[in-house]
């Protein structure tokens, strides 16, 4: 198939592993999926310490389940990426460890305190859900299928995040203050979740033309703000003065003053050059390296034949 044929046919769930997709499509799709899969892993890595730091047994269980789900999502997305024939799962996981794998900006920042968790668990997950719902329409069928499952599971994540926020927002004055401080810190990062505005985004046109994605960064951010700004206010959070955001009622559109956001920081993060992000990358890489021996041990027992490989000493 040539690229014009792809563009002509592009539509929801139009292409799959049996199709002979041109290299440009396969590379663009791999890039999207790899970014998405890496983000699941690095999001899980960022949230994992909060299993330990949860202040109740049920919170602990919920965080454990959420982190578990995210690893499962990574598994699905790496598989959907592999189906394009460009990179294997192992290659992508290695790239992530080497600092070559890209992932969501929000997961390059450190998160140290319990009251920060709703920023990721509610706002970032909420933003992710907005995006993921539209990706059910992706032209790459394995991606769309992965989205079906991920969207099914993700609902609890966002509600869990909101529940934590509600508890803090209706807690002591100290808790409310800490929640607001966390919001002040994370809000610009959350706004940058959707990436640069359309005119600055380099990959959008092609991805949209071949049906890999169906909504622009602007559209998604607008939808997100529509839903989540009122929620933030409901919990008594004040939207910070900067970045300046103006709501235009006539167009039902939130205008964000882009220059008020730190795009230099964003692009450093996009190149995996932000120090806190490097800490995350390297921390995970070190842990991954440390269990390489166990993977090798499993591989040694993998004969490629279905039956159990346990033969030593057996009759």
């Amino acid at each position: 198939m040539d690229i014009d044929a792809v563009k002509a046919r592009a539509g929801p769930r139009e292409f799959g592993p049996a199709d002979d997709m041109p290299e440009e499509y396969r590379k663009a799709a791999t890039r999207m999926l790899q970014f998405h899969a890496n983000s699941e892993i690095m999001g899980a890595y960022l949230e994992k310490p909060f299993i330990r730091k949860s202040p109740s047994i049920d919170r602990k269980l919920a965080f454990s389940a959420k982190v578990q789900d995210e690893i499962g999502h990574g598994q699905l997305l790496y598989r959907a990426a592999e189906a394009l024939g460009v990179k294997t799962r192992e290659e992508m996981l290695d790239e992530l460890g080497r600092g070559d794998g890209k992932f969501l900006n929000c997961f390059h920042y450190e998160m140290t305190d319990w009251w920060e968790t709703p920023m990721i668990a509610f706002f970032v997950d909420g933003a992710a859900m907005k995006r993921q719902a539209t990706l059910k329409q992706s032209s790459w069928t394995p991606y769309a299928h992965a989205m079906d499952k991920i969207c099914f599971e993700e609902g609890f994540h966002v509600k869990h995040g909101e529940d934590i926020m509600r508890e803090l927002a209706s807690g002591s004055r100290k808790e409310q203050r800490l929640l607001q401080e966390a919001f002040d810190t994370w809000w610009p990062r959350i706004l940058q979740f959707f990436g640069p505005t359309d005119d600055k985004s380099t990959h959008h046109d092609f991805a949209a033309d071949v049906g890999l994605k169906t909504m622009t960064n602007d559209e998604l951010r607008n939808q997100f703000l529509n839903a989540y700004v009122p929620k933030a206010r409901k919990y008594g959070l004040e939207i910070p003065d900067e970045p300046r955001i103006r709501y235009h009622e006539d167009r039902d559109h939130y205008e964000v003053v882009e220059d008020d956001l730190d795009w230099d920081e964003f692009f450093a993060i996009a190149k995996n050059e932000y120090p806190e992000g490097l800490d995350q990358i390297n921390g995970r890489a070190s842990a991954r390296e440390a269990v390489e021996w166990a993977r090798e041990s499993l591989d040694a027992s993998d004969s490629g034949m279905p039956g159990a490989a346990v033969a030593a000493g057996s009759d």
Partner: protein
Amino acid sequence: MGDLRSLADLSDEERTAAEALLFRLADDEFVLAERYTEWQVIAPTLESDLALSNIAQDELGHARVWYDALNRIGHTEQSLVWERDPGSFRHSTLVELPFEEGDWADAIVRSYLYDVAEDLRLDAVAESGVHELVDPIEKLRSEEEYHLQHAQQWLERLCDDADGLDHVQDATDRLFEHALTLWVPGPEAAAIEEYGLRGDSLASMRRQWLDTVGSFLESLGVTMPLDPEDDPADHRPAAVGRDGSHTDHWPRLHDDLTETYRELDRSDVRRLRGESA
């Protein structure tokens, strides 16, 4: 087999014995789960990560079941976990030990030694005649079955190559004396036995446990740290957990896990509604 009685029906002395037993059960599961969660996101493979996470949630869920039973005799989650003096926890030292980075063999060996013991213990407690002890056991068992299978299958494959076997041997050597504390009696041991709250004695269960883990591990090429003629009582670590004595790792862990609760001056714990609500 007579009718089951409730904790409320028991005499004060019997209830005190049941309470002590519940603390052993609950604290073991709680601390074990806490350590297991350290492996989330960094297990050897994505699939093994999910399996391990599930085991962690199972064990924490078991702890919750036993802590709920203790709620019936005046304890609350706050008093049992968040506001409790670490020195009053009664878990085995096996479950409080930290993991070295990359020591997946420790996770598996620890799990194996614990799960075989748990199997025997649940069998014994199933004969207690007390509702709150007996009712949860069927569900717990079905989950523990998976845990044991998981540990066994991993051990078989790790021990199948020389490097894996080395790791497993190291972990076994390091963990074994702590695993023996699973069988060390606590302050209420005599009463627990007198009231038949365990259908088998600790010494007898320990013997069966040693037989089972010994023959399985040896079949995989692991050398047991104990000879059959050794007296397990001679191989105890300095702290045994069952009497409130713990390694230095425990107070640090307890501190860590209670940090948020204390920082926010909490006195309430968020409880989610259950599946049957």
